[in-house]
């Protein structure tokens, strides 16, 4: 088998990895949160059952909607699949599509999905949809400068924004990992994940009150196959952010170093192990912090922005 074919096949394996394990990540997170709260919680495989059930249901669509409403779940589902082709999900070496786009492209692809989902929410005529969409845009608008600063800081340290090269730079030595600029970027990016994923303290994932929702009211009108796609896409987005955070920024180890299939398959449990630790931290934060009031979110993201600014200036003055 030629190297090109192998790389293409590993790329497809990355897509399969994302599709297969994203609902599991969400299931484990939900179960852990319930356990920490002293409850038993649903099975970790519940998201698979939910998605399967939704695929078998009929779809009800409002007469007010346009093509955007039907198109949004598809693009929301497809974009994470594109993104996983660009990032080091299982291998430490660049694959076939690695140089097609950098971390800015990752942000751009995710933003396209977010844009269509927000449009679709406004398309339905449901009062809560536009409310959630505009709130999400507000958080997105505040998070955008932080995203940019994270990318700039990372590129400044690693001299590249290609995720594979950044991963190799951090993985080169422990001293690189402990640089002040790196720690500051990691903290800011984690705050960004909480904001972008609609996690506490920015938004409550388990919230059932539509008026208080930020991101989740956008999906209220979906049913059947579209709802299944939206749910699956939401889980994949969390997994994509976790992969970028873990494999690129914080623990760039445990990935396959060769093209041997055994090596590549061995990377799957290692990456899942790292994700388990990430999910435990996320569950602890979700259960121990309170949700911020809407207009306090700007403070949370401003703090992330300033931390990024610190990272940049630390590099500029040549300290670390």
């Amino acid at each position: 088998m030629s190297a090109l074919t192998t790389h293409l096949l590993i790329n497809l394996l990355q897509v399969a990895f994302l599709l297969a394990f994203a609902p599991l990540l969400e299931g484990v997170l939900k179960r852990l949160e319930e356990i920490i709260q002293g409850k038993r919680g649903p099975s970790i495989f519940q998201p698979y059952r939910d998605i399967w059930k939704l695929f078998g249901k009929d779809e009800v669509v409002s007469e007010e909607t346009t093509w955007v409403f039907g198109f949004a779940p598809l693009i929301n589902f497809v974009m994470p699949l594109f993104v996983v082709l660009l990032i080091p999900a299982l291998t430490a070496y660049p694959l076939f599509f690695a140089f097609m786009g950098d971390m800015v492209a990752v942000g751009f692809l995710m933003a396209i999905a977010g844009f269509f989902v927000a449009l679709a929410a406004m398309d339905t005529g449901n009062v809560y949809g536009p409310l959630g969409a505009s709130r999400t845009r507000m958080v997105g608008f505040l998070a955008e400068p932080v995203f940019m600063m994270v990318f700039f800081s990372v590129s400044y340290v690693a001299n590249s924004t290609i995720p594979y090269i950044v991963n190799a730079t951090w993985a080169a030595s422990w001293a690189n990992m402990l640089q002040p600029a790196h720690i500051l970027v990691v903290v800011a990016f984690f705050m960004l994940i909480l904001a972008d994923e609609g996690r506490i303290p920015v938004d409550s994932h388990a919230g059932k009150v539509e008026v208080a929702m930020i991101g989740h009211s956008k999906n209220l009108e979906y049913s059947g196959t579209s709802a299944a796609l939206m749910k699956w896409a939401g889980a994949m987005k969390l997994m994509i952010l976790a992969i970028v955070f873990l494999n690129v920024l914080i623990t760039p180890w445990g990935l396959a170093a060769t093209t041997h299939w055994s090596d590549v398959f061995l990377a799957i449990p290692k990456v899942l192990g790292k994700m388990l630790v990430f999910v435990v931290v996320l569950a602890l934060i979700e259960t121990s912090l309170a949700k911020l009031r809407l207009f306090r979110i700007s403070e949370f993201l401003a703090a992330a922005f300033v931390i990024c600014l610190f990272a940049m200036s630390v590099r500029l003055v040549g300290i670390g």
Partner: protein
Amino acid sequence: MALATAGALDGLIAALFVIFGLGVIVARQMLGALYLFMLHATALTAAAVVLALALDSPHLGWVAVITFTTKVIAVPLVLRWAAGSEIYERREVDQVLTIPVSILIAAAIALVAWVAANPLVHAVADRPFAAVHLPTGLMAMLFGAFTVAVRREGVAQLMGLLIMESGAFFASIAIVHDLSIIAEVAAAVDVPIAALVIGLLIRSIHRVTGMTRVGLLASLRERR
């Protein structure tokens, strides 16, 4: 400990020291600010331990012991005694400036500290950790001064004062490795006494006015 390893660890601790200092400025809740202050002091302790091991200096070990005992254990106990109800029951701290403005000013302070410390770093280029410690310590001092200026709250102002002191220590442990034990003991006694005096003041203000929001006491009112 090898100097390279210590340098890397020290960089990590310095980054956390800055984040916790920023946290005290950003935190709206009194208890949150107190926890962040304790973490800030713990980062200073960790930095002193790393430097003590790297430079083989028992004096810096003493700095670590003193910092931990006074700032992480004694000061919270004093504050709990002096203004326990204010810390554990009140949610938000009054401030002159809004949090977003404070954050922006904190960013400007950080840049000023890095630029201002640059000539000093060149002056002590022979000291291995000064390049990280001087600007970080200066930044913490400015963060502390800023907190004292913008918080209309006795307890938060005390934290600002102690953050300034932590910043001074953070900078000085990189320059002077053999600080005399007398100076260390003096500093050790100094911090709880400052906390005690301000604690007593806060307690008496609380007894007379029923609160510790010193910002509301700006105008005089004659006692009948």
